């Protein structure tokens, strides 16, 4: 088991969310849910983060920002789309400026639906993301050994 699964640091980016999902993401860090039990820490720095939580849909304004944050994150990394908007653009899907879900900009590993997404769903998604993170860590190790 990789240590990555024991200390996943998350970064949260609000794409064009209505703020409903953002509040839920931050609620997961509050005493009621206390995700620090699993070693999860909220960080503001993409270079320190292992899991990228995106809320809201991708639009022409923020697609560059999402890509930039994703590129700055260091492998192995995992992306979790939080809320229906981030999964598929949700109720905003036919707005003139909206491109779609987060997977239109960067590869998404776990989808957490819900409007707004419940903190329980976010925690479940992150735990699922840990499995992906573990696999990616192993792949990276194997790649390093091969090189």
């Amino acid at each position, binding site marked *: 088991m*990789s*240590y*990555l699964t*024991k*200390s996943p640091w998350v970064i949260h980016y609000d794409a064009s969310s209505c703020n409903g999902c953002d509040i839920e993401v931050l609620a997961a860090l509050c*005493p009621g849910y*206390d995700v*620090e*039990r*699993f*070693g999860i*820490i*909220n*960080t*503001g*720095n993409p*270079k*320190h983060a*292992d899991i990228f939580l995106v809320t809201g849909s991708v639009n022409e304004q923020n697609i560059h920002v999402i890509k930039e944050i994703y590129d700055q994150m*260091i*492998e*192995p990394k995992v992306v979790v789309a939080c809320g229906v908007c981030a999964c598929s653009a949700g109720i905003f899907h036919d707005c003139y400026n909206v491109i779609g879900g987060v997977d239109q900009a960067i590869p998404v590993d776990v989808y957490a639906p819900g409007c707004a997404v419940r903190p329980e769903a976010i925690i479940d998604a992150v735990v699922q993301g840990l499995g992906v993170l573990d696999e990616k*860590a192993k792949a*990276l*190790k194997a790649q390093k050994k091969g090189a």
Partner: protein
Amino acid sequence: MDILLIIIGTLAFAVAAPILGCLLSGIDRIISARMQGRVGPPLLQPYYDVRKLLEKDRVSVNASEGIYITCALLFTLLAGGIFFSGGSLLMSVFIITLAALFFVIAAYSTRSPYAEIGANREIIQVLAYEPMVLLVAVGFFMAIGSFDVSAVLSAETPAIVKAGLVFAGFMFVLTIKLRKSPFDLSYSHHAHQELVKGITTEMSGSTLAKVEIMHWCENVLFLGWVGMFFVWANPLSWIIAIAVVLFVWFLEILIDNNFARVKWQAMLKWSWIITFFAGGINIMILAYL
């Protein structure tokens, strides 16, 4: 002979301090969580964090950053080795400051605006605590009669008796040295009050792991400075010193959880005022009475 002692001390410190510092940091996080009504992470969480950072891919904005951080870590170990092998307190103070400067240079070398703000603030922090730390060394010399830390073992009274006010002043700047709120201006462990990630913004993977380990060792060293005030010839005094150290650590966690970050102006002003009065008066009394 002295050199040999320092080398052995440094090696021993390099092994013991990270373990001790890691446990202290784990306790810190659990107690902080309990103060906020949370369960908190496992005790070994800081260890997991560092192991994880070592597993991450190696990415650096330049080649020199990692070297500066390695230097900072090595000088921290040396400062700890000198102190705990009973060497000169003054030397320990200077070398730990050198480590702080390497840390600052590493941040400047990245040319990132956020890391630069962090580095600027770190320098202001050094400016704020350094006078008091030097007065600690002077006060210690006047109370014990030597800069050598080993002299406490044959002292008739602990340093705290004659240098009580110096100790009080040191307690104030200790919050800056341990990077705790309200004085965690350059590098906070709490994301919500940080500009990206302050001085460590551009550091990642194994470089950040080194910063964490350095931070653990620093904490052990500074708590050692606290304990030094309470040790004298009586072997039982060690128990008192350890009790005081643990109490101070708890106090720092309490302060950390109860204060929001202040502006740097306030930090600089208050630490110099307290240095001037607490440190200055104490040393004047020792010098003229």
